[in-house]
């Protein structure tokens, strides 16, 4: 039995499908706009995609355990507004505030997890509630419009790029953050036992519980990680473009869609971190492609919907053909 054989078959196919879709879409981009082949522009593409990729990777944890996290968009908004209010343009405040933001993120994730694990509220409802109250809180705190200011060193995390770097041309700091965060999140799913626990919980929580897996703790951890990833995405997004009270609008569904396009199974039990990565990059490549095509804004929604249905429909069709 070779080593490749021993990998779960479904996961291997999922990787290929997500990656394939991304490569196809990026090839189309290049076809329309050949300079996207330059490493500099690719780096810029990654810089802009970084928040969504990180969000999707965090969301994947929750999806693996069989849930959804609809609150990630609100966490992004909250992060951006809170960061501006707390730092208020003071560069010395940046690092303590970032630490505080992560603490708040952990608290929000903990809240979601506790509500799902102990109050037994389905995650779609629990995180919908969190989305509402957190958005409300962010708006109430900031008074409904962006207040305060983000200092330069905070913004650099999402904005700064080194120019004239060998091989890649420009190297945005956001890409470094992306790589570091992904390495961490990859480690969480594949490098340690936690990932297998999460898969087991998503697959069959009852069996997982009887085999000794702390189901509640596993779920709560997933929500905490998802919220922490959302804080990271918020920091990058705030850095990239500045303070805004609608920074996170719509990101919750995009991050779920990304995981699903990449081949993760909704309701749990199947998926790898690469599902989130390739799915999110595919989705972002699609946005970029539609921008380049200059289609009316509204129709971009339509095409996104179409791609979503087709991608998932193909997966469903293939898995049926296999059985």
């Amino acid at each position, binding site marked *: 039995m070779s080593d490749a054989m021993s990998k779960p078959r479904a996961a291997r196919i999922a990787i290929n499908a997500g990656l394939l879709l991304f490569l196809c879409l990026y090839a189309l981009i290049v076809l329309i706009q050949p300079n996207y082949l330059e490493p500099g522009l690719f780096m810029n593409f990654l810089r802009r995609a970084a928040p969504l990729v990180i969000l999707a990777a965090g969301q994947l944890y929750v999806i693996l355990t069989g849930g959804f996290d609809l609150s990630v968009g609100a966490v992004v908004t909250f992060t951006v507004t809170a960061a501006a209010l707390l730092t208020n343009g003071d560069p010395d405040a940046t690092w303590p505030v970032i630490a505080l933001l992560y603490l708040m993120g952990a608290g929000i994730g903990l809240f979601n997890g506790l509500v799902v694990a102990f109050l037994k509220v389905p995650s779609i409802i629990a995180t919908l509630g969190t989305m509402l109250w957190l958005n409300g809180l962010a708006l109430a705190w900031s008074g409904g419009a962006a207040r305060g200011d983000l200092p330069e060193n905070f913004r650099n995390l999402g904005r700064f790029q080194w120019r004239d770097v060998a091989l890649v041309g420009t190297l945005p700091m956001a890409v470094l953050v992306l790589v570091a965060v992904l390495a961490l999140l990859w480690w969480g799913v594949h490098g340690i*036992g936690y990932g297998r626990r999460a898969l087991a919980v998503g697959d069959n929580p009852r*069996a997982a519980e009887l085999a000794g897996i702390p189901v509640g703790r596993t779920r709560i951890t997933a929500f905490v990680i998802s919220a922490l990833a959302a804080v990271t995405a918020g920091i990058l997004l705030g850095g990239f473009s500045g303070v805004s009270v609608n920074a996170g609008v719509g990101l919750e569904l995009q991050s779920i869609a990304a995981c699903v396009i990449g081949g993760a199974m909704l309701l749990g039990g199947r998926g790898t971190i690469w599902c989130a990565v390739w799915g999110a990059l595919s989705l972002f490549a699609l946005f970029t492609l539609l921008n380049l095509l200059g289609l009316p804004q509204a129709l971009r929604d339509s095409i996104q919907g179409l791609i979503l249905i087709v991608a998932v429909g193909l997966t469903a069709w293939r898995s049926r053909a296999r059985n």
Partner: protein
Amino acid sequence: MTPALDMRGICKAFPGVKALDDVSFDCRPGEVHAICGENGAGKSTLMKVLGGSYRPDAGEIRIDGAAMRFAHPRAAAMAGIAIIHQELSLLPHRSVTENIFMGHELVRPGFAGLLLDRGAMRARARVLLDRVGAQIDPDRSVAGLSIAQQQLVEIAKALLLDARILVLDEPTAALDDRDARQLLDLIRILRGQGVALVYISHRMPEVAAIADRVTVLKDGRLIWTRPQAEATIPAIVSAMVGRDLKDFYPAAPTAAPGETVLELDAVQAEGLPEISLTLRRGEILGVAGLEDSGKGQLARLLAGDLRPAGGTARLAGRPMPLGNPRRMIAAGLGYLPADRKREGLVLRQSVRDNAALALRAMRPAWARPAAGVFAPAMLDAGLKRMDVRAAHFGQEIGALSGGNQQKAIIARWLALDPAVLLFVEPTRGIDIAAKAAIYQTMREVADQGRGIVVVSSDLPELIGISDRVLVMHRGTIAGVLPRDPREEEIMQLSLGVSV
């Protein structure tokens, strides 16, 4: 007499497997025709073809002599075929009446046939429940019924359609002995009423007791069909496995059992007024009892799934953390549930991941998933020791047979080296060859100095494997019998009749 059911030359292939290869099978009105075969022999495929879930690649199905084609289960139902599956197909939140009439509701005249006639349905449900001998209020919700009662509701469902062909797929698997006997009586009554009954079971004594004819399938092919008189249990078994099975149950241990490993002292819990028992290392303790005797509650209690209300318990010399599965495992208990699909397996994960599940649960979450005790070589060695047969251990466990799945779960627990293993219905739905292997393993595991508790409804199994048999009745222990008890002794204690 024209057979009610006549299947001729049925073939069905799946990618890579020939599931049915030219199988012919018939069943006459007023006949019980048993189908025997190991898992994977083609029994369920044949029944799915009959039930309209699969379309055959070749062959024909005749009902009362007329050729039929079933595009959907509904077509089969309309032709008078009813199949009672191993997995009950009831609606937990709905009433008994609604369940009986699922898919075949009675409607009021007029209203374009859209409005339910609930009064008529309830009345009819009463009649049907009477016919199967079930004293159940038709308005009760199914969630509150026992498994045996649910089984009867399933049969009432079949009778509703005046099914002339009734297929029972392991109907007694989840039933205790008393309920199983009642069911067999019901089958005899139905036979008397001219129903053609197809009976699938792994329990040989039942087959011998009730079948008029027996058909044996193996590897998708028909081995033989014989009248009951020529189908002795040894003949069936050897046809099924293709060889003679001797030493079905392992021999008694030579060494005396060791020190006490598990001890319950006046433990109380829901449905268990007071339980005291001891288990020693190297010993296999059988637990028998009717379905409502509390043996299921005892199993849940030992698995940590039921919170105790009082009493003391010790496991391997330390107080036992009842009421918390995870801490019970940490204390040295391994639990093999009866319902492997719902409680034992993570179906979409690999064989290897399933075997590593408990180990992963008990090691820190940040332990590397493929290093140390989780190294594929280590896990594979455990699975190979258990003789789990899979294309490769990275395969999803859902594709494996019940026997191999059960062996993988045993490997899961052995990886933790537990002091006590708790088996509930260890061989339910598992074919004969795998059964023997599992019994053998249980003995070996016990001989290594572990204690084993077996909770089972299968009396021959309990008698064959147990060193002592503890019989439960109404939540308490009615008696403890030494090795090799007689079935009658167990039954008497189960029924609360003094010996």
